[in-house]
């Protein structure tokens, strides 16, 4: 392979996503090519640039924005924010420098402000507002949970599950998207701790058929004895008789850890 072909592999090499063979090709090329070697070295040196801390004022300003939102002053503030943006946009755009256009815009702005002010001050029905805020809250919860479940660090994924559990206590209905994400975590997360937390979080959804099925199916794909035991305990806790057949099969599987098989046997006794 020539330098150009190797160079195409370098971005993937830097993110560690090459196959062993391809990585070997790049590493064989680096000692003989100064340009490619330096590029890789610079990428590594970039890690030396320090992370900067924002000043304390940033948190204070964020908190002020949240306070405004929580006290219901958000709509007014939002409007002010937009007016300010609009206005500074006009200033830099030179709109007001032409007198006739300036006057026209001033009148229009006044009208917009007047109409918007009326709209904000007219109380819509309290029920409607409440319903909108409730749906806002559900969306926001989903956004936070799903974003944290995608994090690299196991502790952040654990935090996501803890939050999903806490929020689910106040919800009447489970969010299907969050449940699907939790089931996916149970099946595919690489950390045992996170998978165990997912089992706990799913425990209260025994009335959801897809959760019951997901939990029983997970038993066969789990490699960790700890998670397997937690799943068996959960089936017993749910008194889920449909799990007996699977547990029997599991109990007779010689490749399964001995203690887990004993647990499965105990589970079968409890359920029959």
């Amino acid at each position, binding site marked *: 392979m020539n330098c150009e072909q190797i*160079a*195409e592999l*370098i*971005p*993937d090499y*830097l*993110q560690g996503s090459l196959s062993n063979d391809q990585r070997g090709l790049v590493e064989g090329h680096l000692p003989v090519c100064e*340009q490619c070697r*330096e*590029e890789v070295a*610079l*990428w590594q*040196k*970039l*890690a*030396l*640039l*320090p*992370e*900067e*801390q*924002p*000043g304390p*004022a*940033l*948190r204070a*300003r*964020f908190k002020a*924005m*949240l306070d405004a*939102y*929580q006290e*219901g002053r*958000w709509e007014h503030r*939002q409007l002010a*924010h937009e007016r300010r*943006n609009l206005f*500074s*946009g006009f200033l*830099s755009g030179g709109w007001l420098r032409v007198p006739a256009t300036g006057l026209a815009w001033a009148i229009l702005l006044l009208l917009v402000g007047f109409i918007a002010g009326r709209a904000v001050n007219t109380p819509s029905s309290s029920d409607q*507002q*409440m319903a909108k*805020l*409730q749906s*806002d*809250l559900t*969306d*926001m*919860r*989903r*956004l*936070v949970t*799903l*974003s*944290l479940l*995608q994090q*690299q660090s196991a502790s952040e994924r654990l935090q996501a599950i803890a*939050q999903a559990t806490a*929020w689910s206590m106040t919800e009447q209905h489970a969010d299907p*998207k969050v449940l699907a994400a939790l089931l996916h975590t149970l099946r595919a997360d690489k950390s045992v701790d996170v998978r165990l937390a997912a089992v706990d979080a799913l425990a209260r959804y025994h009335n959801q058929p897809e959760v019951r099925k997901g939990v029983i199916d997970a038993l066969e794909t789990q490699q960790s004895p700890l998670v397997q035991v937690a799943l068996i305990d959960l089936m017993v806790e749910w008194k889920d008789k449909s799990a007996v057949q699977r547990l029997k099969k599991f109990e007779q599987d010689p490749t399964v850890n001995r203690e887990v098989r004993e647990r499965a046997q105990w589970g079968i006794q409890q359920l029959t």
Partner: protein
Amino acid sequence: MSQVRSGVGEMLGVLFDRYQMPLFNFFYKLTANRTTSEDLVQEVFYRILKYRQSYRPGTPFRAWMYKIARNARVDHFRKRRPEVSWEPEIEPAVIPGDSAQQNQETQMLYRALLQMPEEKKEVLILSRFQGLKYEEIAQLLGCEVNTVKTKVHRALQELRELFHRPETRPGTGTKLEGMIGS
């Protein structure tokens, strides 16, 4: 009703704790200006609160957030470019415990990074410092993954050239004004 609002606030707080540092560093490495960077982080959280319903669950959150961040930055400089001029803070913090040679190298690298054209600098910052995968960057920039890889490679080539230019060396009084934030 206030309970519901405090729920939304609590969740935005979680996002703030998690992302204020990466976002600040994203803007700071692009603009080399602390005040501008803090303003922009604040603007991003304002927009997350305002546009939270436009987030589609199941899509990568970070790509959505950085899209907001990029737009906020573009809007910021579109508005302020003619009026405001500022001096970039070009010296990175000295890392205690590092040798003088290492510190000098870090400064040269920082200068080289600041001199890069916006587009190349951004792709390097996103992939190297913000830890975005090429797929996420492709989604963010609206291009193919292979295009992102080519951009990363070209950016590194340019960084290497700038790193070796004599004016990148410390103490040569480089004029960086005007090269940044345009």
